[in-house]
């Protein structure tokens, strides 16, 4: 513990005194590096990076003379976590329509509802996520939850981001079109699962014929499906395998149906949630479909997801499925935090191993978000999205000492901490606190 405190102190000092972004080369020395990539685990390692890429990583490295050097005192240094499936940055205050861009109730914008235009880099929740060691996210739209007079099944188009301040957040646009299937999906299209499946396949058909025809005329059939030209163009990306379909689905039979349809239609799927996924883990693995798991949910929500359990992630991974973690269930729209400590709780409590938990939170999350070529592991040439921890990254009481995104040190003091400290001073002045 004695090593941790100076590290934190140094961190706080740097936040207070140094402007956050200075173009420079940084070297982290004396680090216990979990690269989450081909270099594996490195004891007493060094990592050198600038604001473009990781320059070198290993032991006994030459440190450039102009580099800023940070001694990690043997603590864990690893890539930042990637949260797959979150409304972070697009739902400032979800109770208020005007401030919430996570969904739309406009029936003429469905698949084309692209959250890249909703990102608010100033959302205070982004700093909260960074203070939990998250550096990247797959930001997904939500299907409108209000009363839906108009049937719809697509929430919109996702974007993968880095939680960077003072630079473009977007790492990849068109990172997946979100569709809600199963019980919820059926209820959004007038009831009955077969109805949604027929509508979905019709929509793909319309998208294909629309983009292939030279005239690009909207057919009556497409209009009746509530699909605009932009929706059809968005869906064509799914039909052409340029973008995956992220399907929010939980029931085992619904999952198998979606796998069959994906095969028949030749499209790429990612399962979002899949609470009963473990019961058909072998089929999901055989189809090579990744799953974004909620690490907290373990209560059967209704009769169609009766086998919901905290063992889902462990059992999917054991079957060979690639798993990422989403923001936790307790508050899907507004409880925006890293799933880190909830994932940590699964280690030991369920069959999830420590290593698999970290892989899901980093490189597999990045692969699912379509940004593994840029981040998700510490490798030469990749972005320097790096966290220095003050303890075990999955322990509830640990905290990042430093967070770097693309080589730039980030502010991780949250708005809540600033407010707390303001009232701490007042309480001390008033004698309420010593």
């Amino acid at each position, binding site marked *: 513990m004695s090593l941790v405190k100076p590290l*934190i102190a140094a961190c706080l000092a740097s936040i207070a005194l140094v402007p956050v972004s200075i173009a420079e080369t940084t070297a982290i020395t004396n680090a216990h590096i979990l690269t989450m990539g081909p270099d594996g685990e490195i004891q007493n390692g060094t990592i050198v990076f600038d604001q473009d890429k990781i320059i070198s990583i290993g032991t006994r490295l030459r440190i450039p003379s102009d580099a800023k050097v940070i001694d990690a005192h043997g603590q864990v240094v690893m890539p930042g976590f990637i949260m797959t499936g979150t409304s972070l940055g697009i739902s*400032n*205050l*979800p*109770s*208020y329509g005007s401030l919430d861009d996570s969904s739309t109730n406009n029936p003429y914008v469905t698949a084309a509802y692209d959250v890249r235009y909703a990102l608010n880099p100033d959302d*205070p*929740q982004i700093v*909260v996520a960074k203070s*939990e060691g998250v550096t990247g996210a797959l930001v997904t739209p939500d299907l409108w939850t209000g009363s839906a007079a108009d049937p719809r099944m697509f929430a919109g188009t996702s974007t993968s981001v880095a939680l960077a301040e003072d630079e473009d957040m977007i790492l990849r646009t068109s990172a997946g079109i979100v569709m809600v299937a199963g*019980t919820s999906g059926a209820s959004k299209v007038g009831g009955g699962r077969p109805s949604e499946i027929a509508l979905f396949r019709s929509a793909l058909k319309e998208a294909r014929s629309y983009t292939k025809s030279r005239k690009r005329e909207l057919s009556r059939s497409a209009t009746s499906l509530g699909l605009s030209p932009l929706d059809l163009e968005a869906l064509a990306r799914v039909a052409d395998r340029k973008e995956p379909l992220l399907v929010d689905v939980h029931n085992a039979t619904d999952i198998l149906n979606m796998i069959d349809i994906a095969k028949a239609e030749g499209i790429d799927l990612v399962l979002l949630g899949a609470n009963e996924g473990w*019961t058909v883990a072998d089929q999901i693995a055989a189809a090579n479909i990744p799953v974004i798991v909620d690490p907290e*949910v*373990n*209560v*059967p*929500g*209704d*009769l*169609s997801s*009766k*086998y919901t*359990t*905290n*063992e889902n992630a462990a059992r999917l991974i054991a079957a060979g499925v690639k798993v990422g973690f989403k923001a*936790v*269930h*307790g*508050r899907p*729209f*507004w*409880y*925006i*935090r890293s799933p880190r*400590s*909830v994932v*940590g*709780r699964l*280690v*030991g*409590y*369920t069959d999830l191993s420590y290593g698999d938990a970290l892989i899901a939170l980093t490189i597999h999350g990045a692969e699912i978000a379509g940004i593994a070529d840029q981040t998700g592991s510490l490798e030469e040439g990749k972005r320097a999205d790096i966290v220095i921890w003050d303890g075990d990254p*999955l*322990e*509830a*009481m*640990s*905290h990042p000492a430093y967070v770097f995104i693309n080589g730039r040190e980030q502010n991780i003091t*949250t708005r*809540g*901490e600033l*407010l*707390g*400290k303001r*009232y*701490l001073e007042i*309480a001390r002045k*008033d004698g*309420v*606190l010593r």
Partner: protein
Amino acid sequence: MLTLLLASAAGNMAYAEDASEAHPITAPWAEDPYPSTYKPETVAPVAITNATILTAAGPAIGSGTLLIENNKIRAVGANIEVPDGWQVIDASGQWVTPGIIDAHSHAGTAAVPGVEDGLNEMTGPNTAEMFAEFSLWPQSPVYPRLRNAGVTTIQVLPGSANIFGGRTAILKMVPSTTIQGMKFPGAKYGLKMVCGENPTRVYGAQNRAPMGRSGLMAMMRKYFADAAKYVEDWTGYADKLADENIDSDAAAPARDFQLDSIAGGITGDVRINTHCYRAEDMTNVLITAKEYNVKVSSFHHAIEAYKIMGTLKETDTCIAGWGPDWGGFKMEAYDFSSLSIPMLSEAGVCVAVTSDSDETGQHLNIDAARSLAAGQRAGLDVNEEDAIRWITYYPAKILGLEKETGTLEVGKMADVVIWSANPFSSYAHPEKVFIDGVEVFDRSDASAAPLSDYEITPSDKGDTQ
């Protein structure tokens, strides 16, 4: 203050001096119309030894012993001899704490099995006459999950659309086919009240009162005044009976189930739990309540409680808050701070970490750990002995049950958890859970963690975690 004239649930006192001639009438607000039928079974005494014990009532005990006999804690400490013939559980390397208490839960209603039960009765801003227990489902799969996670007592509250939401249900997490079989014996009822944005949003959208905070507080004041008058009328009636005699023809005041619940907040027979976020909202409720001697026992969620710590201390008001990062989901929750819980704790305010969620309710220890870590990083004087009180002793106090449960002290109910490790570690999980000394969960014995009826299926695929 009225206990001399009207029987209260606490004392059941007669108004006449000579008990044989007494015709005690129970004050309507003190009635318990649906009493608990739960009685713990009798089990053999048990000793838990070699554990690190967080009692929530003092310093941690290293390598301590806890003795449980007749459903109660018989002894706790470092140098305690185990009586002959007792069953001994060697908890070397493990930690022992009081059972977790969640003062803000909705477990057993609404979400399962995908059927809304209407515990949020959004049909009018005053449903104080409603009892939450009638919306609860004893076969909810949430209950065994909470029990297996070390939760031994919860308070289930009505939803937050109404200024006066209704009576809460205080339950022990014991298996039962009825809700009465889970109710905490002798617990006073809570009343859920709500200020701020929820009632104004729900009713404002219907072009009804309250449309704004001023309308809301005016309505709250009106019902407080009505309740004060109601107490006065019933007290006058009891006086008359006492002054005259058995054959008094004094007419009883009209019974009003809504006012029963609110009047109990004046007499101390009902504990008022108010959902409130902002500093000025909480202050406004306190000054409005003071006018009619209504006691607000606790504010729930209370995002900005850290801004009015002095007021909360002076008025002896508890806070049922959240872990460090709940907030930001609506305007009145915008100023959430990870420092709120530890600041309130250091200031000596009664403060609990609660869940408001079926899933989060299974890991309040982790949420408390995260609040503790945030406080320590900010240099606050808080430690594990404080943090355990946020999820045991203080929530018991919010329920008015701190003399019965919430700490490991001699004579209290033996609501106990044996953890695999320090409960503030991500990797800790309950090994054994006791409610009133009865083992209700044993990690090494799956049959001790039965599925709810709902989960019984021919396919045998269910898990209780």
